[in-house]
């Protein structure tokens, strides 16, 4: 094809034979192809390796410093002591039952608080008046330190299992309600209009648009709530209880068994982490199709 001159424009002949300048040396070598996955894999490996190193370093330093006396082993205990104490607690004590006790009250409180709180938050969509009247009280409840209610709840519900569940529930219910409320407020009014124009009834708008729309907000409160729920359950056990990790820690503190206190702290940390990971899995499952970036 030759260059064509037209009135007002020229169609150039394209040089198929290659560039005007000589091909760079690099051309003979393999072309540079960006391998995004290999890059991502390498980053991932470096992160995992870094995490492991930091974890090992902390444990090793802890052990070492308590042995050479830089840290007082009486107060700080040491990884080895904590492990041996944990083992005796599992084999001779009631550690496993305590774990089960604390985690079940936490989970019950979390599930109950999140469900009822979310329902409450969602219900604000039905009536602006109802929402307007309730809002200040919700904010008041949110501001109130629920843990200060612990003694009352224990006296009211007894020192048994349910006072702990109630406290975990109280810790989570308001956060869940507020989150769901924000979600409901964010619903696109045009979306509602569209639904009504399609002939939808209110309950259809509610189930088909409002609930799914508010879902990301409700999901985002889960991570905070699982930690709050555990804190509630533990404080409940601090006040008065015959089982649970919280009770074990308080008991160990009273008899100055610092190793046992550390066992409690470590077990609670692990428990909290496991439940957190459970929530992350739950989030992943719930937020399918929302295109949300998960950390």
């Amino acid at each position, binding site marked *: 094809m030759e260059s064509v001159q037209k009135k007002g*424009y*020229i*169609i*150039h002949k394209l040089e198929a034979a290659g560039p005007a*300048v000589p091909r*760079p040396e690099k051309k003979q070598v393999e072309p540079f*192809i960006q*391998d995004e*996955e290999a890059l991502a894999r390498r980053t991932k490996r470096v992160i995992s390796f870094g995490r492991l190193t930091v974890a090992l370093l902390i444990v090793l330093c802890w052990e070492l410093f308590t042995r050479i006396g830089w840290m007082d082993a009486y107060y700080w205990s040491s990884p080895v002591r904590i492990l041996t104490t944990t083992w005796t607690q599992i084999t001779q004590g009631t550690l496993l039952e305590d774990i089960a006790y604390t985690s079940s009250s936490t989970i019950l409180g979390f599930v109950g608080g999140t469900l009822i709180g979310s329902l409450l938050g969602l219900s604000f969509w039905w009536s602006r008046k109802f929402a307007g009247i309730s809002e200040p009280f919700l904010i008041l409840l949110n501001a109130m330190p629920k843990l200060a209610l612990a003694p009352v709840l224990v006296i009211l519900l007894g020192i048994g299992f349910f006072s702990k569940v109630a406290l975990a529930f109280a810790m989570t219910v308001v956060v869940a309600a507020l989150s769901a409320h924000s979600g409901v407020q964010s619903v696109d009014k045009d979306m509602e209009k569209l639904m009504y124009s399609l002939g939808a009834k209110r309950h259809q708008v509610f189930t088909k648009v409002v609930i799914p729309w508010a879902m990301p907000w409700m999901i985002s409160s889960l991570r905070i709530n699982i930690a709050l729920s555990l804190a509630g359950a533990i404080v409940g056990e601090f006040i008065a209880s015959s089982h649970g990790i919280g009770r074990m820690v308080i008991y160990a503190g009273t008899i100055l068994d610092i190793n046992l206190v550390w066992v409690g702290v470590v077990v609670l940390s692990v428990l909290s982490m496991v439940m957190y990971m459970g929530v992350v899995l739950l989030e992943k499952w719930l937020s399918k199709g929302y295109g949300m970036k998960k950390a």
Partner: protein
Amino acid sequence: MKTKIEIAGVSKWFRRDGQEIIAMQETNLSIEEGRFVSIIGPSGCGKSTLFNIIAGLMPPSTGRVLADGEDIIGKTGHVGYMLQKDMLLPWRTILDNIILGMEIRGVPRKEAVARAQPLMDRYGLKGFGGHYPAELSGGMRQRAALLRTLLYDRDIILLDEPFGALDAQTRLTMQNWLLEIWEDFRKTVLFVTHDIDEAIYLSDDIYVFSGRPGRIISKISVDMPRPRHMEDTVSASFMELKAHLLDLLSGKPSAHIS
């Protein structure tokens, strides 16, 4: 005329799911100094990839990129770059946004303001320096974004669909405004668009990209006299060229033979 940008045998590959994907086939371009060059092509044809390579934000898989005879692969700061989104920082006033490039280069604020002020007055932003981006219309924000690019003071300016988000009326005003600035500063402009009218109206040269994976299928020089006027967009030769470009873009074989 002097060659400003030379792109020789540049291509881009990715590896995804173990498969090699080609984003842009081997491309040769040579852009002469002071020309207004447009690149048109269907979406996903690698126009933005090419821009990222020229801007030094992404290394090519093969080939080389020269600006004034100097290798600029992987080197940023040789070209001014502007996107469809205005990318003005919402917490900075228009004036502070415009001098951002100079601020980053370490130009004292006083001097930067002294340079920005006359440009703002002259190119339709008079009295808006103290406003925040959110208070301005889309066209005004694009003006500010372009002035920011201009004040970055590079001979080469890459514009990636700068008027893509504007309505038709504003777009026309902005095209004339851009031509006015270009006549005044005589920078080398590389302009990506998928609006054929816009490409013909603005350009000296038009490169046409094929669909994915992109390659150049045609180079056309527009030698309609400047300054161009709105009437030119309905002239016979304008229409003829438009028809030709439409054929090229829709992949009609007749267009290749002509």
